[in-house]
C-alpha cells in the first residue's frame, strides 16, 4: 500500500462472509467490547479522546469531545446515523452490508462509554440488504451475549434497535433524524438547543454519531487511542474510508491513512483510482460530497487532510471524491447538484426552498442553450441570497446547514468555468457531448 497503515474499518472485507458472526469472531470480533467492559466508561472515553477520532459523518467534530457535552440525566440515548444519502457517498452503506457486527460492536462500546441503556441504529430505508444484515447481526449479538442484560456477564445492559428510514435525504441531519425516529416528518429542529447532547430524542440527552465513527471504536479500544492517533497527522488522525467515483478507471472504496496520502494518489495510483478513464485529462474533482466547493488539478498534491482541505476553501466532508474528466460539462454538473438540493429541501426555510428552485431553473436553462448573459449574475445573486457574501464556510441563514451548503459548489464552478458557462449562452447549446454511458 501507499503507507504502512493498517486497515481499520475494512480489515475484514476481503472475506466473502465478512458479515457473518462466525467470520467476525474468527477475526477478533467482540474482543474490543470485552476489553472495554474490563475498563471503566471513563477510561474508554479517555481512549477515544486520545485517539483524536473525528466524526466521519461530514462535520468532522471530535467524537470524544461530543460525548463530553452530554447533559447529565438519568436517561441518555445513543443514535447511530446510517442514513447515508449525501451524493457520491457510499462508505456507510459498505460498512453496514459487509461488516454489520463491527457497527454493532462499536455502538455497544460507545453506549457503555456514555452510559446509554438504549441505542438505535438509524439505517437508510433504501438499504434493504443492509437492514437485513444489521437485524441479523443484532439477533446474533443478543444470542452471543453481547447485547441485552448483563453483557458478557458484566453489570452493563443495553438494548439496540435497528430503525429504518423511509427515503428523505434531510433525515441525515441529526435533528431531522431524531424527528423521524420519533415517528414524525423529517423536519430539522430549530436551534438552539444546538446539540442533541443537551436535548435530543424524546427531549433526553442524545449522542448522534456516524456509522464509520462507530466502526473505528473496536480497533481503538483493542489497540489503544495512541496507536490510532499515531496514524495520520495532526487533527487528521487514523485512517479514513474514501468513496471514489466518476471518471476514474477504478471507482470504489479505499481506506487510506489520512493526511499522508494525496488526492493525486487516490485518483491516479494504479492500486487506487487508476487514473482518468480513456487516458483523458482531469477537469475538476469534488473533494468531499456535493456541498464541497470543487477542486482542480492544482489541488492534486494536497493530502487527504481535514485541515488542509478546509484552509484551501473546501472540505473533506463525507469522504466522497467525484472525478470529472475534460469532457464533463460544468453547467450540467452544477445543475444536477442544485436539482438534488431542490428535490431534498424540506421546505421549512424560504432561502433554501425557493433559492434551490431558482438556481436549478437558471442552470437548466443555460444548459439547454436558452440562457442569457445576465443569468450568471442572477445565479450568483440567488446564491448570495441563500448564503450572504458567499463566504467559506457559508453563513448560516436557515434552520439547518443544508440551505447554505447549496451555493458553495456551484459558485466554485462558475468562478472557474465562467467562459464555459458563457459559451453555452453564446452558442445557444451545450458545447459538450452527452455523458458517455459506462459499459461493463
Amino acid at each position, binding site marked *: 500500500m501507499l503507507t504502512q497503515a493498517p*486497515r481499520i474499518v*475494512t480489515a475484514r*472485507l*476481503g472475506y466473502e462472509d465478512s*458479515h457473518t458472526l462466525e467470520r467476525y469472531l474468527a477475526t477478533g470480533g467482540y474482543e474490543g467490547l470485552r476489553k472495554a467492559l474490563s475498563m471503566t466508561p471513563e477510561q474508554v472515553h479517555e481512549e477515544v479522546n486520545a485517539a483524536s477520532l473525528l466524526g466521519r459523518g461530514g462535520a468532522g467534530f471530535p467524537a470524544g469531545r461530543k460525548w463530553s457535552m452530554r447533559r447529565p440525566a438519568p436517561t441518555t440515548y445513543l443514535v447511530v446515523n446510517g442514513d447515508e*444519502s*449525501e*451524493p*457520491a*457517498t*457510499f462508505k456507510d*452503506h459498505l460498512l453496514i452490508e459487509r461488516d454489520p457486527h463491527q457497527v454493532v460492536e462499536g455502538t455497544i462500546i460507545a453506549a457503555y462509554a456514555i452510559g446509554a441503556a438504549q441505542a438505535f441504529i438509524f439505517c437508510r*430505508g*433504501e*438499504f*434493504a*440488504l443492509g437492514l*437485513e444484515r444489521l437485524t*441479523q447481526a443484532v439477533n446474533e449479538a*443478543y*444470542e452471543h451475549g453481547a447485547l*441485552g*442484560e448483563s453483557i458478557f456477564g458484566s453489570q452493563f445492559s443495553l*438494548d439496540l*434497535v435497528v*430503525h*429504518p428510514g*423511509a*427515503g*428523505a*435525504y434531510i433525515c441525515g441531519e441529526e435533528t431531522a433524524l431524531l424527528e423521524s*425516529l*420519533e*415517528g*414524525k*416528518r*423529517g423536519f430539522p429542529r430549530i436551534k438552539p438547543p444546538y446539540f442533541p447532547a443537551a436535548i435530543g430524542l*424524546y427531549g433526553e440527552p442524545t449522542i448522534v454519531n456516524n456509522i464509520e465513527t462507530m466502526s473505528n471504536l473496536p480497533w481503538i479500544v483493542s489497540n489503544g487511542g495512541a496507536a490510532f492517533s499515531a496514524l495520520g497527522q495532526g487533527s487528521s488522525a487514523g485512517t479514513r474510508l474514501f*468513496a471514489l*467515483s*466518476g*471518471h476514474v478507471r*477504478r471507482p*470504489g*472504496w*479505499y481506506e487510506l491513512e489520512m493526511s499522508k496520502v494525496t488526492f493525486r494518489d487516490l485518483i491516479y495510483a494504479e*492500486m487506487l483510482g487508476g487514473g482518468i478513464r480513456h487516458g483523458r485529462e482531469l477537469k475538476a474533482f469534488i473533494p468531499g460530497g*456535493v456541498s464541497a466547493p470543487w477542486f482542480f488539478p492544482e489541488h492534486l498534491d494536497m493530502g487527504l487532510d481535514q485541515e488542509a482541505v478546509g484552509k484551501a476553501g473546501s472540505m473533506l466532508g463525507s469522504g*466522497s471524491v*467525484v472525478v*470529472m474528466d475534460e469532457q464533463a460539462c460544468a453547467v450540467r454538473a452544477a445543475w*444536477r447538484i442544485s436539482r*438534488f438540493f431542490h*428535490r*431534498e429541501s424540506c421546505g421549512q426555510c424560504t432561502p433554501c426552498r425557493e433559492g434551490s428552485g431558482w438556481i436549478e431553473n437558471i442552470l437548466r436553462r443555460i444548459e439547454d442553450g436558452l440562457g442569457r448573459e445576465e443569468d450568471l449574475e442572477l445565479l450568483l445573486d440567488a446564491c448570495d441570497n441563500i448564503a450572504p457574501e458567499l463566504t467559506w464556510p457559508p453563513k448560516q441563514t436557515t434552520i439547518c446547514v443544508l440551505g447554505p451548503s447549496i451555493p458553495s459548489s456551484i459558485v466554485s464552478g462558475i468562478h472557474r468555468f465562467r467562459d464555459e458557462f458563457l459559451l453555452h449562452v453564446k452558442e445557444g447549446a451545450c458545447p459538450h457531448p*452527452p*455523458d458517455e*454511458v*459506462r459499459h*461493463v
Partner: protein
Amino acid sequence: MGHLSPELRSRAERMVALYPERRSALIPLCHLAQGQDGYLTEEAMEEVAELCGVSPAEVRGTASFYDMLHTEPVGRYVFAICTNIACMLAGAYEVLDHATERLGIHLGQTTEDGLFTLEEAECLAGCDRAVCVQVNHRFFGPIDEEGFDQLADDLAAGRLDETVPPHGVLNRVVRKVGLEASRRKDSTISRNPQSAGDPPVGPAAAKPEASGPSQSEAS
C-alpha cells in the same frame, strides 16, 4: 377485523414494544404494511394509527413526507434509476431515456400490466457501480442500456424472484428479541434466534453484489 394479517399484526405489536414511545414505530409499521399490500392502503394507515396511538391523518401526513412510502398502488417491480452526479457522469440520463422508451411509460408511471414502475432516484450510495439501479430496493449495477433490457426481461420472466422480493424492506429478516422481554429482570433472552420458518439473510445476501474493484480485491 384488522387489516394486517394476524402474523403481521403480532409482529407489528412486538415492533411497537421495542420503542420507549409508540409513535416511533410509525415508519417501521408503514414499511411492514407496504410489504403486505405493495403500498399504503387507507385501512393499513388506520391500523398503523391505532397501533401508534395517533390519528390516521397523522400517519398519512407523515408518510407523505417520505419517498419510499407510497399511498397509491405501484408496479410489482419499482425501478429506481439514480441520476445523481456520479451516475449522471456515467450516462444515467441516457439509460433513463432508454428505460422510458423500453417500458413505454413516463417517469413515475406504471406499465399497463402492472409489472413495472419507473422512478428517477437520488444517490443510492452505490456510486462505484454507476449507473446504479434499484429494483424494490435491491441493488443492480453498473447498468447500461443493454443491461437494463436484460434486467427487465429477467424480472418479467421471474428469473430474479429470489433476489428481488416484493415490496417492503423489513419482510425477510425478523428481529428475534423483544426488548420488553429482555428488560424484565427474570428474563432469559431468547436463545433461539434462528427459529424455523425464518429464512436467514436471503440469497441476495449470500452473494453480495459485486462492487467496483476496490481495495479488497486490489491488495
